[in-house]
């Protein structure tokens, strides 16, 4: 049996946890040793694994069923990495706890060994949160970092989408099997990530549908794959706080992006800050400095725009903050046609952003 087969075998045995495996490894050292003594040392191995797990493992210990398992992955067109493989990222292998025996993935696995940052946050993000996510992703991606997140609603999906828009590599770490993308409505987003040369990865068997424990569990991988974790918005019970805990555990930097003070999505940031898990950052460069990365020197030059008087007037009005169409109409003194045309033009130039077609604000941060 090769080491890869060994991992394929034990990854299919429920209850064969990393901790129990470590105990066995301490004793046997090499996996070959363990396999040789599998029958003879039964009592000893049982004491490390529990009798039930031993039973289950024994039943699955058969070259045919292991080959069958490998075949099932291949048939589903899903690739598998085990710690025995070279592509298995060191960052996860050396995590020090709960290292997954397999990583199933679709896309480019080399991204896991590149420099990445994680961006996580509330599933119920606000327009402000979406905006901040986009702004940070844009700059961090510009400096050559990949973006890791969890494909969930809210901040996660904004992070992935912003990375796609910036042509940056992005990794989605799932809390369910690859054939059960959760939430299902993000299946298309996952496909887009793969098409754009990104990676969708999971530590679970493809047919696993996810459980309340599997999502917080995968957060340790998000932290492991990243050099730092950015928390954008988080309620007091946000799942993103688990990612922060794992990042702290793994000695990674945690960056807190201030949320709106009066929103419930500030509570999680506050608790993370107060317990000393992370520090607030105010611009993408703060993150880059902390990670020791030079901000991209050749940032795309802003095109020199020929703005007419009307557009300039609207930009001035918006400099005070978000305004709705009606206030703009009153303050700018333009006709509807002029105002509508200006707004579309400014949005096209990326100078303003629109929420629906009623609220407008200045779009560029840096």
């Amino acid at each position: 049996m090769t080491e890869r087969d060994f991992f394929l075998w034990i990854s299919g045995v429920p209850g064969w946890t990393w901790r129990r495996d470590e105990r066995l490894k301490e004793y046997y050292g090499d996996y070959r040793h363990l396999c040789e003594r599998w029958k003879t040392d039964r009592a000893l191995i049982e004491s490390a694994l529990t009798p039930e797990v031993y039973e289950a493992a024994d039943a699955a210990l058969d070259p045919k069923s292991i080959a069958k398992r490998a075949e099932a992955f291949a048939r589903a067109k899903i690739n598998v990495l085990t710690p025995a493989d070279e592509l298995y990222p060191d960052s996860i292998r050396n995590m020090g706890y709960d290292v997954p025996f397999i990583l199933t993935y679709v896309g480019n696995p080399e991204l896991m060994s590149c420099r990445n940052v994680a961006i996580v946050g509330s599933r119920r993000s606000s327009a402000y949160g979406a905006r901040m996510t986009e702004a940070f992703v844009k700059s961090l991606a510009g400096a050559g970092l990949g973006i890791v997140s969890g494909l969930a609603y809210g901040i996660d999906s904004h992070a992935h989408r912003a990375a796609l828009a910036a042509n940056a590599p992005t990794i989605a770490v799932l809390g369910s099997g690859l054939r059960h993308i959760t939430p299902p409505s993000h299946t298309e987003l996952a496909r887009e990530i793969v098409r754009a040369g990104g990676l969708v990865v999971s530590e679970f068997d493809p047919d696993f549908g996810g459980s309340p424990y599997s999502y917080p569990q995968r957060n340790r991988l998000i932290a492991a794959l990243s050099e730092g974790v950015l928390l954008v918005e988080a309620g007091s019970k946000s799942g993103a706080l688990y990612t922060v805990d794992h990042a702290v555990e793994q000695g990674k930097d945690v960056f807190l992006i201030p949320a709106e003070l009066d929103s419930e999505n500030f509570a999680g940031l506050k608790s993370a800050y107060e317990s000393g898990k992370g520090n607030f950052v105010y611009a993408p460069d703060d993150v880059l400095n902390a990670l020791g990365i030079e901000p991209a020197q050749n940032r795309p030059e802003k095109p020199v725009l020929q703005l007419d008087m009307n557009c300039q007037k609207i930009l001035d009005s918006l400099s005070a903050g978000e305004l709705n169409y009606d206030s703009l109409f009153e303050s700018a003194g333009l006709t509807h046609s002029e105002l509508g045309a200006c707004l579309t033009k400014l949005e096209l130039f990326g100078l303003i952003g629109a929420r629906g077609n009623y609220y407008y604000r200045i779009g560029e941060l840096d």
Partner: protein
Amino acid sequence: MLAKLYSFGLNGIDGFTVEVEADIHRGMPAFETVGLPDAAIKESKERVRSAIKNGRFQYPTTRITVNLAPADQKKVGSFYDLPIALCILAASEQLDYERVKEFCFLGELALDGRVRRVQGILPIAIAAKESGFRKLVIPEENLAEASFIDGIEIYGVGSLGETVAFLNGETPRAPLTHREACAVLKQGETSGDFRYIKGQYFAKRALEIAAAGGHNILLIGPPGAGKTMLAKALPGILPDLTPAEALETTKIHSVAGKLDYSEGIVRSRPFRTPHHTTTAAALTGGGSNAHPGEISLAHNGVLYLDELPEYDKHVLETLRQPLEDGVITVARSMRSVTYPANFMMVASMNPCPCGYYGSKKRTCDCTPAEIKRYLGRISGPLLDRIDLQVEVDCVEYSELTEPADAEDSAAVKTRVDAARARQTERFADSGVYGNAKMTSEQVRRFCALTPEAKELLQAAFERLGLSARAYTRVLKVARTIADLAGDERVGADAVMEAVRFRSLDKKYTF
């Protein structure tokens, strides 16, 4: 003896000639009605007998057979009381039969001999004129409605006795004088004026564009944003009905019995507001008689659907065909009827189940899945047929208390009328009445963009995530904006403004 005279029946909003025959012959006293009569016609023998007796005529105590021809077409309604009674009087020689022949008759009888009004007089009068009849006798109460028909002599009668006296030449009567429809058309009373709506410039602009081009419009906003108030003010800025439109709409209302009999004509564009519990049959028309539904009553006017997602999904889907074709065909086991249904759809909805998604007033506490499910109640093809998607939010208190009045509806209407006039000229003889109904061929011809506009529109589609199907919608709206501005070509400004009215395409990303 046998007598025969003419009356009319209705199939949908089209009248057809009915021959009413009565035969009186020896035998046991009896009254038999044949020729596919409905219950109302079968019961008419009781009304006829009493009316004849109470009108101091002789009711023949012999066998009476009444036939309504063509015998294979179902006849419905109470039109035939008067012709049947007259037929019996003629057959029993109490009436000068020679003079009766050139008339046709319609009317319901009361037991005391009075003539009561009936539904659907307008389409019948039109049919009578078209089938070459020169004289028509109808209930007095229906006169207002019939007076808009020219080219046929119409006499109103109040009772059976009066009718007989008139027919026998004892009391001569002058025929009804014709009224021009345009003389009575006016702006209908509206429940709101733009003047009283503070702020909401964006929504008001969108309504102006919708009114000018006949575009369907969807208002999206939280509770209390004023969606209903805005929609109700719409009739005030719609162009006046043309006489032809008024008659067409009146026909439908007359058949449905929804006509104000003292007015006699639908004077302003109808504004129909079916409740969201409405059934498909009530909306599109139906029942055993294939009655016109709300969408036909809204013909040449507005169909307002408040809280769009609350409507039964399959009820909404029935709107797709009429929105496209402007007619609805109601098929029932006994008959199939086509009604006109060329209406402007105005709908309003909340952006999510709690109502506050995207609002400044309060934060929304719906989950993405809930919002998706809520929006999923409206199908893509239906949304596709809505040109203008407009978001509204609650007006700030300071704006509400602001003293200055806004522009009033009359001023807006002047601009709308001018834009409509331009379209009428453009679409002369093509069967299209507004920009919203342009065919793809016409879009190509009339929405030619300036090179600058074309470039900007392409950029907008690429950068702003608009769906491909929004393309013609944007062009049509841009055409209307150009019409409002009085421009011959669709310029960059018009196209850029039109892009603003596509919000659902990009609003919801989770």
